[in-house]
């Protein structure tokens, strides 16, 4: 067994994290920055950071991921990274010619005290930022928050550097996209189009990290929200944030800066979260919900009804990011399953309160944990104490699933051993249908291959 060193018995850990259910801020900032058209993310720190983040994103999306680095040396760590960043900006515009450079910091550049406002204005003074080009930045020290925080900081930076209010408000709704797949973003845009709601979705990784093979390498693929759209978010009449952890900060900043009111809902994973999203969009965009969407919902309910006996009572362990875990837990309850163990490395009151509200009556035995030491090792120990029927999360659950022989649905970041997550959505009614089918497939396949021979039947 690969994780044979994990035991059921829990030993009190204070200082040690084993097999984390999180990673550090900069990768989130890099991911979000790729959702702006023509943007080159820039990692202000050592070469390794940039290399790791690019590798992580490349493995997950199986797409080229471009980002530059300040390539810190011993000298930069003593004298500051200012000159590295200034010359990096020059190199980037000369060689790679992006429209925007989105700089994010690292633990190293934060600790030595590099002041990005000052450095970037120096680059401007020195004439290193060509006319019409832009350098934006956000602070993402790795020792604060997690990759989710980094994502949120980058989205907030979009607001800070672009959103502008003119006297004329437009009948447009901003949708601040939480951390989801390009396929999910595509699906959200489709739903809005179906409803004839005018929206600006930001960031938008569809068309960037799910680009077609053309025989050409495009440094800046077609997709992404445009700068003009980002500027126009200041004139929209309302913002809906999808996922509190990844978008609330941006929503607040946009309200403060441009007086655009907002509401934060969950990422529309599952039936009820999608209901809330559709209701919110319908109300704020002042558009009716078309029959086509109601029918999508009906097909989802139909699927659940057809298969409810297979969902019923199954114990599920899940892990990942709170913005996905909260609506996912709710969806599992909708399916009459039992989410019993839930772990996220990203801490916050909202997660704990949401779980309490969702689970205290329906699954009183459920255990959930967030923040430091809420890691995969902990989750595995719980599973060893009392097993589950299904595991949902990123690829890091693979060894647990194998060791414990549990059906395993891959969802979240990173997924590095399977394809399809950036092609087929998990959001909206269609996404929920997709997700419910994945769960069914895994649970039933597991039954078929593990049950006693005399119990095998062709019809189920």
């Amino acid at each position: 067994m690969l994780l044979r060193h994990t035991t059921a018995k829990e030993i009190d850990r204070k200082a040690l994290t084993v097999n984390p259910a999180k990673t550090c801020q900069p990768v989130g900032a890099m991911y979000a920055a790729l959702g702006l058209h023509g943007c080159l993310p820039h990692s202000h720190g050592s070469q390794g950071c940039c290399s790791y983040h690019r590798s992580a994103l490349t493995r997950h999306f199986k797409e080229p991921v471009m980002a530059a680095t300040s390539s810190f040396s011993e000298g930069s760590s003593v004298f500051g990274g200012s000159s590295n960043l200034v010359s990096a900006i020059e190199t980037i515009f000369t060689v790679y010619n992006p429209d925007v450079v989105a700089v994010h910091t690292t633990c190293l550049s934060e600790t030595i005290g590099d002041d990005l406002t000052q450095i970037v204005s120096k680059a401007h003074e020195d004439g290193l930022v060509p006319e019409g080009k832009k350098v934006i930045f956000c602070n993402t020290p790795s020792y604060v928050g997690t990759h989710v925080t980094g994502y949120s900081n980058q989205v907030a930076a979009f607001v800070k550097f672009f959103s502008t209010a003119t006297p004329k408000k437009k009948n447009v709704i901003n949708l601040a996209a939480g951390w989801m797949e390009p396929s999910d973003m595509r699906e959200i845009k489709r739903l809005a189009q179906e409803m004839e709601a005018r929206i600006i979705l930001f960031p938008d990784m569809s068309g960037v990290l799910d680009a077609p093979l053309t025989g050409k390498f495009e440094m800046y693929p077609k997709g992404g929200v445009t700068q003009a759209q980002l500027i126009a978010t200041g004139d929209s009449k309302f913002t809906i944030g999808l996922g509190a952890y990844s978008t609330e900060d941006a929503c607040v900043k946009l309200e403060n800066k441009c007086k655009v009111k907002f509401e934060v809902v969950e990422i529309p994973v599952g039936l009820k979260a999608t209901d809330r999203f559709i209701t919110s969009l319908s109300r704020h965009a002042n558009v009716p919900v078309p029959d086509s969407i109601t029918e999508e919902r009906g097909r989802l309910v139909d699927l659940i009804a057809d298969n409810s006996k297979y969902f019923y009572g199954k114990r599920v362990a899940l892990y990942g990011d709170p913005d996905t875990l909260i609506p996912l837990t709710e969806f599992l309850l909708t399916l009459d399953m039992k989410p019993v163990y839930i772990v996220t490395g990203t801490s916050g009151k909202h997660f704990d309160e949401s779980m309490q509200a969702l689970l205290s009556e329906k699954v009183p035995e459920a255990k959930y944990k967030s923040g430091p030491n809420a890691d995969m090792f902990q989750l595995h120990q719980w599973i060893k104490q009392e097993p589950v029927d299904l595991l949902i999360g990123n690829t890091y659950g693979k060894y647990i699933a194998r060791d414990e022989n549990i059906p395993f649905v891959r969802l979240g970041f990173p997924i590095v051993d399977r394809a399809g997550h950036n092609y087929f959505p998990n959001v909206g009614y269609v996404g929920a249908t997709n997700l419910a089918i994945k769960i069914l497939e895994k649970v039933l396949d597991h039954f078929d291959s593990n049950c006693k021979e005399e119990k095998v039947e062709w019809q189920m």
Partner: protein
Amino acid sequence: MTQFIQDRESQIVTKGKSNFDLIGGKPSIAGSVSQRACVFCGSRVVLYPIADAVHLVHGPIGCASYTWDIRGAMSSGPELHRNSFSTDLREKHIVFGGEKKLYEALIELIDKHQPKAAFVYSTCIVGVIGDDVQSVCRQVEKLKNIPVIPVMAEGFQGTKKDGYKIACDAMATLVGTDNSKKISPVSINILGDFNLAGELWILAGYYKKIGIEILASITGDGRVNDIQNAHRAALNVVQCSGSMLHLAKTMKEQYGIPFMKVSYFGIEDMSDALYEVAKFFGKEELMDNARDLVKDELKTLLPALEPYRKALQGKKAAIYVGGAFKAISLVKALRLIGVQTVIAGTQTGNTEDYKLLKTICDDGCILVDDSNPVELSEFVKQTGADLFIGGVKERPIAYKLGIGFCDHNHERKLALAGYEGMLNFAKEVYETVCSPVWRFAL
């Protein structure tokens, strides 16, 4: 682009056109989309296959997350190395120091797993906040009575290659600390094989057939006690010279153990390696065994390669890998299956490496140090390459360009070492270059 290429003039050479030598080992220009990694990464990948040690990453969570089970280094026994252990430093530790947390984490970890040794990796931030990692390691070592080895691998100190050296220094502190292992007089250490896809086991099979014992494998399927006894081997056989040469040199200075550089990739280099090692011991019997082995292997391998060679004849390859030694072997192995190398680049090659690489390549081959995606895709277009050999970040670029790709880095899933590996390699090149999918690219 023109300006950039000018700045990098000394790092790009076309054989037959430019007559200067390519300068390797230059730091990357700030702002480049470099494919290189950091010092920590170098140390971590080299040490991580030691499977009965714990590897604790002292720093914020990212460094531990990204290197969690970083490559498929297989173990025949313990699997401790597949876990990720971190002190997960937070803001308060950056302000008040992380030594206490490191101490506690080490104690928790050692109590839980009773490892044979602990490696503690110092990351960028630890270097800056000034935690005395060495002193904490000494304290815990005394208390727990196992080697607790600081790996001072702050990322900003240089490139991955500098990290290899630091890893070698860390291991050098283990070497020579035990004499209890029973060994044969005909024993070697294998340095620089990481048992990716079980490659070490293939090599071990060959050496066993010849009559040579492997004392320590450093670090593929590695064990602490083998490394502690490694000073008693007759010879160090070093593969992937970039990562392990430093340890071989240190062991030569300290224990007088000679070393030889080999490559296990491709028929020529694999056979040379076996002959050279056999010759070293000066026993005719070993030489005979080696000859028999090579003869047997080739008898089946050569005809098996033939259909692939026919299908691939005239195809062109671009190579962009970590070290130059690997690139040299690749050029030869590709030639054997009819494929010509038109681009040969590395992340960490030095000037000497590139001289050698240049003599092996054909005229017109572009040699490049520390390249980036824009350059690489430009070169692929210029040369009309049909195949790209590289690592994780190059794969999707190659596919977008509509050409085949082979992973010759951490993520290879097929053993490429030895005779068996050569056949795997030919199959893999054939599968990707001749895939029907490229005909559908518009």
